[in-house]
């Protein structure tokens, strides 16, 4: 491509640019088709009967035919899994954002002995693959008697979410101007009051970024429930999905409907908040 492209571009500038942009546009369109096709086929298949899926996998279905969803609603634990996922993810997020902001505020706003060491301690957790510590974690949860209890998941997710949250929030909190804080202190406001009423309203943008960065992996996690949770009524959505997929192996319409239902919440939120999602999920990698 190298030599050819350069001489071509040198000789006719505008046409060359057009050709190049055309090629790039073709690449983008092709890629978008590849990205969306599996998802479209999944949603279409959810509205088909199994024979229809085998006969015409690409055909547009009759969207009023919701027998597959009705079956999931009445015959499976799907709703239970969904509610469990909401509960575990929601509780973890509240803990992560509360504790993460507390630590970041202390490190970012006050000068005290050991502040940089504590930040280092949090950052060490940023890169460690916790999956490899699953055996001691399993034993720890057993000793705390929270195996087969959603608290085990909430605690692990909270701990895993804190390093990134502290990292993002500390950086942000440090950039806030200190004039407001000093003025309030002059007026005799307590430290807790300064944090709550003056500083916290200002850190919301960073909380959104840190929140999105953590909520997606927690919502989607499969590994920790696989090890910690056995009781079917406690399973989260990705884990419940494996149970469900095992039960309905031959009923493809129901399988695709189950996958569609599992994917729907996050796809809808992503489409509504794509900008925040992209910023949040790449924030660890983009400085």
């Amino acid at each position, binding site marked *: 491509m190298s030599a050819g492209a350069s001489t071509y571009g040198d000789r006719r500038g505008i046409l060359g640019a057009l050709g190049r942009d055309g090629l790039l546009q073709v690449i*983008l369109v092709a890629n978008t088709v590849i990205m969306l096709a599996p998802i479209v086929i999944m949603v279409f298949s959810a509205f088909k009967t199994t024979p229809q899926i085998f006969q015409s996998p690409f055909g547009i279905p009759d969207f009023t035919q919701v027998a597959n969803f009705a079956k999931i609603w009445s015959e499976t634990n799907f709703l239970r899994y969904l509610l469990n996922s909401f509960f575990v993810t929601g509780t973890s997020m509240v803990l992560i954002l509360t504790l993460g902001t507390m*630590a970041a505020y202390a490190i970012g706003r006050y000068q005290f002995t050991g502040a940089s060491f504590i930040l280092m301690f949090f950052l060490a957790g940023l890169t460690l693959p916790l999956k490899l*510590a699953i055996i*001691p974690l399993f034993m720890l949860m057993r000793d705390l008697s929270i195996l087969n209890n959603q608290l085990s998941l909430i605690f692990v997710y909270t701990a895993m979410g804190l390093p990134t949250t502290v990292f993002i929030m500390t950086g942000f909190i440090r950039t806030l101007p200190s004039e407001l804080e000093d003025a309030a202190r002059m007026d005799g406001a307590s430290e807790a009051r300064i944090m709550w009423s003056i500083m916290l309203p200002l850190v919301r943008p960073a909380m959104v970024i840190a929140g999105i960065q953590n909520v997606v992996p927690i919502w989607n996690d499969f590994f920790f429930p696989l090890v910690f949770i056995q009781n079917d009524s406690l399973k989260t959505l990705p884990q419940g999905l494996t149970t469900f997929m095992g039960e309905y192996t031959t009923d493809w319409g129901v399988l695709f409907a189950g996958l569609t239902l599992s994917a729907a919440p996050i796809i809808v939120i992503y489409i509504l908040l794509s900008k925040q999602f992209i910023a949040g999920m790449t924030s660890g990698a983009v400085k």
Partner: protein
Amino acid sequence: MREGPPSSSARAKRIFMPQLRMTGRGLWITVLIVPPLAFVALFIVYPIISAFAYAFFDWQGLRRGAFVGLENFHTVLFVEPYRSWTLNAFKNNVLVFFALMVLQNGLGFVLAYALWRELPGARFHRIAVFLPVVLSTIIVAYLFKLFLHPLFGVVNISLRGLGLGELAQPWLGQSNTALWSLIVAQAWHMVGFPTLVFLAGMQRIPSEMLDAVRMETQSEWVKITKIVWPLVAPSATIVFTLLFVGAFNWFELPYIMAGLDGSPFGSTDVLGLYFYRTAFGNVSAGQQNFGLGSALAVLIFIFIALVATVITVRLRAREIQL
């Protein structure tokens, strides 16, 4: 916390305390910092340190037995059949890493470059390329498992429909295509991530610099190799390192698509599956062995830490500060 004669600790307290009382913030800072610190200490730092300790003991089920030194490490590295299992899984991980470097990061760079030009529809394409990234790996894995089904999967149905019936094959059922099928599914799932990280890197390149190079040359190739690529080096460092760590931790997708044994015939076995199987046991391989499992975890951990450090240091040296 501090050990030593009482006098020295009292002295330390006397130096430390007035400072806290003077500002009135010592207690407040403690209240803020201790709960989050406790979570990280108990659920991240302690388990990781324990993982190292566990590897030096013999385990019977959940009970810790005698101290056995390096025996567990010796077993997983040099004693059959563990030796060939370890080697096979490791080789597969290496293949996965290099294949994804091309399919995921390489393609990601090309897509980022295309998106960077802000052609019509760029916003839509950007949202589309990142959509699979937000899905659970479990959903992606099942979706591709259904698509690749030998009889009813959409891939083989399409091939037959196009008159390419002889290309239709049991993708996940034969050794020479199974791992590659998993790699393609993984690349589809995650290509949006490097794409948008690279794109963010490209968008930070100052436009004066691009104008300057445009004066010098019309060649797109020169522009990419001499300007864009060097200037997105910080993004490259991060996506390469993350891909490396991810590839050697790979678990969920092969677990769903190929099963815990890495079937067929271990052709999709990777360190993540092998570690899990060794630690917690499975239907076919029998009992759990925390000692051998921990030894594997420690070896994988050290390998990842070493190589990730080398990658980061080597690539950082290449980065240019703007």
